[in-house]
């Protein structure tokens, strides 16, 4: 059945397609720009100067441009990398600059001062000018890390997710891979590969695994995104992949660590640790300056096991293992001097065995996850005229997950064997209790057009119009092995949880078994317009506007989210010292979160579960039966209850407000001494109307300690119904001040930062939280959030001690985040109730005035690397390196038990022990 939204989205699709077919020239977020002005020594613009740039990363050879009447020249659509420049004209001394770093989405502004040749000057005299280190026309906040810098750092996690977590304003204390950026939730980031969207469409977390050695640059923007990225409320991670070049290159690497390289462990640490990684990359020209290729692949294999129960009463745990492959293939084709086509594809597959890793799980009840991710993208970068550039992208990504019983490896009948839980010992046995298979697919059509206009009266403009259309779907099949879970106390039956793929209430009590299949879909379109306006040489003002249109539908084709939103943007950058070495910047941005497929999945059909305790007298499972799941356990936009009617009979149906984030940034950056840049940025973000699910069927007393006696459930059934909403109370705010010292050249390279931050609100750990589910608990929720890490000091440094020896280090200090003390919720069950404000302990009494703050200990970590080049010894380009992680051997608790029982405060996750890793790299 077609809906109004289908029609709208179809219209948007054709508009997008039409725009794609425009014969325009290109500029892309994954590319950068060099522009500048040629002046003489009196400050007069010089026309007719020939400017030539080149870089090993740039296909098509050298590019040239001639300065216009205003002395202006521009090179757009440049692949990020390090460029050199040569400017020349008859009777002028040649000007050269090298080490011009072009980052994605950034414009490097150059001022070239030319001198007239004197008669005695040799014709080949070249003036070397220093390339700028400060971007003076952008207000965005973030960091770029190039492969060379990253390769010589002892990274705990040699993947892009680990790099993101080292960026000022980002935290990922437990190493989940989805950092929280400037107050954003773990699902608020966008992950891109060469500008293509690769964020998981369902969970909105990272969607692709990636070979670390295939990364050319990791760019992490933490604030000041502008109109183009106004659909992201956390951080933007963009990975620039390596490309081939005019040289054939072969690069291989390997790392290894095992139990023998772990130190100061104790009896709480896992055993059987082993991790190995082997990577191979090949690149080169298929046709010089026309077609390049690049292929990369790596294999990861790791194992570890929780310790066995020494008493012998609990099961002997099988080892957790990962066997994974990550690959990348890329073709870069310069069709002609003005058009470039690039195709890339990534593929990864992984087999995760025995993933439950609990002492209370028998081997036959373990779970296994098989996953495959695929991404393929095609882009066309075009420069039609010197003033008009464009990029067009078409991309497809897919993830496949199969999570199910480990027993399927040896038991073809595994789907029919119900799992059991013995409440006497707490042990799960017989089989894993769930099974699911799903695809997550995203199709992307995006692009943008930029028109440059230089005028004397109105300054220079870079007017950019762009679009991004995403269509996503998530077909899912799920079941419960044997269609039931059985509970025992020893050998005595205790409970039974039966599952049905249908809702038995709807079908006269008939329960159908098997697999529940459902599919959810979404469409989104962003249209954005901005102008990089320079009224003077030293001021850049970038106003912007974006229009968001997004919807999603659940498996019954019901519209779940349907959002239209406008976001305004304004950024100002000013070079007050007029030397290209200083920038003062400020920006205001409004972002919207238009949703993701998990929201549509939330309202889709669930397996119906009928839970009953065993009655000895009757001899059957008839006691305290409760139904959950099924078709009627979720609604959308009905805050007054499942029937959607207020007490006076009026409708309470509400349209969901788009979750919005207002952001203000203020910053300054200065090249203090040559090559050393100091910068500071203040970021304030206010998150409002965030996604939340609210329980709407129960009628509570004021304290939320019980469901009311006089009519406990609005629909008359003792059933919780959760409504998807974006209530005004779901809010949070972030304030952070980051100061960094950067040195990107010379023997010492460094990125040192300190961030002072405050992150508070009602929730940011999920979109399905207990906030507002129980009215009496709502006042307790506002407080310091788990990501409220007040002080973070990080130093990433490397030093070339000798031509063949370098050392690197990563030092990190993080103050402790808050945690909570949850008491037992008698209604929902489980430990989820606050008895004091979030982040505080009531100390066992109910006087709020003497509550004390709960914070985990401060974390300090130091990693070290020594790297030696064997080239002088063996004549080949071989590096060996040795990483020591957690050199200080700190075992700081990273997470503690928060349930108010005998386990409260006990450490459940610690900083890993000191450990070493050996590495080898060979390049040819």
């Amino acid at each position, binding site marked *: 059945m077609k809906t109004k939204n289908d029609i709208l989205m179809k219209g948007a699709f054709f508009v997008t397609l039409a725009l794609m077919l425009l014969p325009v020239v290109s500029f892309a977020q994954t590319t950068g720009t060099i522009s500048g002005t040629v002046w003489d020594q009196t400050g007069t613009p010089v026309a007719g100067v020939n400017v030539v740039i080149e870089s090993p990363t740039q296909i098509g050879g050298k590019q040239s441009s001639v300065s216009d009447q205003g002395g202006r020249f521009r090179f757009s659509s440049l692949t990020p990398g390090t460029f050199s420049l040569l400017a020349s004209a008859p009777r002028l001394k040649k000007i050269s600059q090298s080490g011009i770093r072009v980052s994605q989405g950034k414009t490097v502004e150059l001022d070239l001062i030319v001198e007239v040749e004197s008669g005695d000057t040799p014709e080949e005299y070249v003036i070397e000018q220093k390339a700028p280190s400060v971007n003076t026309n952008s207000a965005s906040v973030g960091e770029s890390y190039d492969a060379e810098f990253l390769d010589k750092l002892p990274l705990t996690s040699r993947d892009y997710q680990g790099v993101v977590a080292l960026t000022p304003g980002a935290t990922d204390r437990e190493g989940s891979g989805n950092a929280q950026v400037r107050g954003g939730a773990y699902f608020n980031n966008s992950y891109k590969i060469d500008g293509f969207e690769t964020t998981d469409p369902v969970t909105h977390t990272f969607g692709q695994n990636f070979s670390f050695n295939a990364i050319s640059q990791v760019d992490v923007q933490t604030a000041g995104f502008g109109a183009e990225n106004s659909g992201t409320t956390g951080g933007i991670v963009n990975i620039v992949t390596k490309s081939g070049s005019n040289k054939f290159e072969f690069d291989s690497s390997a790392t290894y660590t095992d139990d023998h390289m772990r130190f100061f462990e104790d009896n709480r640490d896992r055993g059987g640790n082993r991790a190995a990684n082997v990577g191979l990359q090949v690149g080169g020209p298929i046709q010089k300056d026309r077609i390049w290729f690049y292929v990369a692949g790596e294999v990861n294999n790791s194992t570890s096991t929780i310790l066995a129960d020494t008493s012998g009463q609990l099961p002997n745990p099988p080892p957790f293992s990962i066997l994974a492959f990550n690959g990348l293939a890329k073709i870069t084709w310069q069709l002609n001097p003005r058009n470039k086509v690039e195709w890339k594809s990534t593929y990864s597959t992984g087999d995760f065995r025995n993933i439950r890793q609990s002492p209370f799980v028998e081997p036959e009840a373990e779970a296994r996850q098989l996953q495959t991710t695929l991404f393929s993208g095609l882009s066309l970068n075009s420069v039609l005229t010197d003033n008009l550039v464009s990029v067009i992208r078409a991309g497809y990504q897919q993830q496949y997950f199969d999570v199910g019983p480990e027993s399927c490896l040896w038991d073809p009948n595994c789907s029919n064997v119900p799992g059991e839980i013995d409440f006497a010992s707490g042990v799960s046995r017989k089989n894993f209790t769930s099974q699911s298979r799903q695809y997550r697919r995203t199709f992307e059509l995006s692009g943008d057009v930029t028109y440059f206009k230089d005028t004397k009266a109105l300054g220079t403009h870079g007017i950019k119009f762009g679009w991004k259309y995403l269509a996503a779907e998530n077909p899912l099949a799920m079941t419960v092995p044997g269609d039931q879970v059985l509970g025992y106390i020893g050998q005595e039956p205790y409970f039974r949880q039966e599952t049905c793929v249908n809702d038995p209430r709807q079908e006269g*009590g008939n329960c159908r078994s098997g697999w529940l299949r459902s599919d959810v879909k979404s469409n989104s379109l962003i249209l954005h317009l901005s102008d990089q306006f320079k009224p003077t040489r030293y001021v850049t003002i970038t106003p912007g506007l974006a229009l968001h249109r997004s919807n999603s539908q659940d498996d019954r084709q019901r519209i779940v989210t349907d959002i239209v939103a406008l976001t305004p943007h304004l950024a100002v950058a000013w070079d007050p010292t007029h030397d290209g070495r200083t920038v003062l910047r400020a920006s205001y941005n409004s972002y919207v979160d238009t949703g993701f497929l998990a929201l549509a999945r939330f309202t889709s059909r669930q397996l119906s579960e009928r839970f009953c305790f065993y009655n000895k007298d009757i001899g059957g499972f008839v006691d305290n039966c409760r139904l959950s799941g099924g078709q009627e356990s979720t609604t959308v936009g009905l805050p007054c209850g499942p029937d959607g009617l207020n007490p006076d009979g009026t409708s309470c149906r509400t349209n969901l407000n788009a979750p919005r984030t207002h952001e203000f940034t203020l910053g300054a950056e200065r090249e203090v001494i040559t090559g050393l840049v100091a910068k500071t940025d203040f970021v304030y973000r206010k998150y409002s109307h965030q996604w939340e699910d609210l329980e709407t069927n129960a009628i509570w007393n004021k304290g*939320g300690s019980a469901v009311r006696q*006089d*009519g406990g459930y609005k629909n008359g059934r003792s059933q919780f119904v959760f409504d998807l909403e974006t209530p005004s109370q779901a809010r949070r705010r972030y304030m952070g001040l980051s100061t960094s010292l950067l040195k990107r050249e010379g023997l010492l390279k460094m990125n040192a930062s300190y961030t002072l931050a405050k992150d508070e609100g009602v929730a940011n750990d999920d979109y399905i939280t207990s906030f507002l589910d129980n009215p009496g608990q709502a006042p307790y929720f506002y407080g310091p959030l788990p990501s409220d890490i007040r002080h973070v000091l990080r130093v990433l440094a490397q030093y070339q001690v000798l031509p063949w020896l370098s050392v690197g280090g990563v030092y990190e200090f993080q103050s402790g985040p808050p945690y909570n003390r949850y008491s037992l919720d008698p209604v929902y069950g489980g430990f989820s109730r606050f008895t004091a404000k979030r982040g505080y302990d009531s100390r066992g*009494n109910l006087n709020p005035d003497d509550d004390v703050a709960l914070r985990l200990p401060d974390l300090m970590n130091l990693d070290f690397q020594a790297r030696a080049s064997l080239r002088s010894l063996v004549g080949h380009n071989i590096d060996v390196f040795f990483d020591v992680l957690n050199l200080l051997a700190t075992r700081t608790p990273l997470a503690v038990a928060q349930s108010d029982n005998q386990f409260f405060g006990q450490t459940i996750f610690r900083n890993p022990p000191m450990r070493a890793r050996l590495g080898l790299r060979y390049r040819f």
Partner: protein
Amino acid sequence: MSQRLLSIWALLTAVGAVGTACSSDYHDESFGVLEFRGTPPTQLLPEDGFEGGGRAQYYNFGDAANLKNAFGEPLSARVNAMYFFFTPDGKPLLAPVMRESRTRQDFLVGGSDVLQMNPKDFCAVVGANPVDCKALNDRQLDRPYSIRYRELLIDAARGSATYQRPIVDVSPTDLTGIRGIYSGVWEIVEITVPSSYEPDAIKHRTTLKKAVESGDFKERRTGKVVNCPFIDERTEVSQGVADAATPRPRMEVWYRNKLAFCYLADGWLTLGDNALGRYPANSDSLRLDTFDVSRVTSGEGVAQENLLVVPVGKAFVPTRVSFDEVNGVSRIPVGGQIVTEGRPRKSKMDPPGYTPIRWFWNIRVEGEYRADSFDSVAKLDQEGQTRAQSPTTVRNLPLRGVQTACSLGKVLRTINGRNVEFCGRDAQDESGNPIVDASGDPACTATGLQCNKNTCFCDSPPVKFGQRCGEGLARCDEDKDALSDNGYTCFPSNVGFCYLGCNAFKNNNLEKQNRGREPKDFVDSRCKELRGYRCFPYQNRGICLRFCDENVLDTETMKQCQSVTNFQQGGMTRTVDLGQGQQCQNVGFQICSWPDDYSPRN
């Protein structure tokens, strides 16, 4: 450059600080509800005893902190402040008392946009169209009781539905510092607020103190005391069957930003009059002392303070004392035998001598002690029993009231070979069988109650099948009638409905037929052999309930609870659906029962 930046920071910080200071004055955030630890009782029932020879009912609200004499004997309970707010012209910001007609519970709530306690009766509106208003009322009946349409409770004097809850700074839940001074008795302290004050903005004594110190708010102690012990939100104080006329509202108060609840056991007439009017400020002469209050000096030197205290009275509990080598000394109180003296004053003419704060004394009685022998303190003295005091137990034990004895005469009946005395008149039922009729007792009718022929005291009225019942509200008639041989049983017993009663001590003669059957197909000879019904032991007798299956459609649910049966009444055969209005509910097992918010349509 850096100086410029610093200046901007300083400016922003200063603006933020000023803004924060201005907006937070005399306004507190609400911070949830004060809950007692553990699982408090869902219902606090009155305890039986005697006062001055009359059968009485007491509430036991737990420990009360007290001051002791040099011998360590409890002397008095400390009175703490409870702050009541008034407008500049003296109008009370306290909400009026509301009585929920369904449960007869009194409430004294607060906050903004306070709603009436009872759902709106659209047909009570003057000029309402009878058809339309009935449709609107029926629409209300389709919804759970607690979310039916209610109108705002407008204070006519102020034209506002926003009320200030009183503020206290002492609670029984504090484990640190001030736990030792909570007693449940409070002095009324009047706070006169400026006209710009938004009621209920202040929720903490500290904020109030600042406001008073600023001079904008005025504070005045009255020396008048009420007894309002804290209760957990989950605890409902049951109505007793004595002194039904005096309002005893469940009051909402603020305790350090948290909403708390207390039960105004003694003192409505200190806050307002018999017509439920609230006294304005400066009306100490109108405020009645419902119990004794005195001033004492405590401490010495700089620690000396003048305290308002409530004297500690005594509560005697007859206790059997035994000794054996295994268990040592055992003291076993005789249930329902609390004896005190003094009654709450209801007018200035009433004598003093009543205090709700009691020091518990065990009165040793011998094994042959006959219950109810001691019905007054004077009689205890006459009997000259050995007193064994329990030195640490001082409790807030207000007297709910003295029960009124039936005025009808005694009737003797022989049941199961035993002579049993009833109160009432000899009469015959519709079938001509002899019965005892206790209806229309003049003494009980005057107090809004009915004579309970079994106890010979005025009691809540008896109701029959499908009627709402509960402690102090109504009792299910246990007598045999045309529909039920064993009368009716209230389920749940605190507040519920009357179901068919049964004798659970008898056997089910049809048990063999149930083998292999689903519970919903059981039959039970004790429950009229109705399909699905079973007799469960409950309330020392039994109740017939019907098994069902939740796992079916709504319409089917209604159908499976349907249970049509015939009975003879007035010589005619009548038909009734025992399951009308019932739903299949899970109460540990799935049974057909009326939902809590069920309202009979007829």
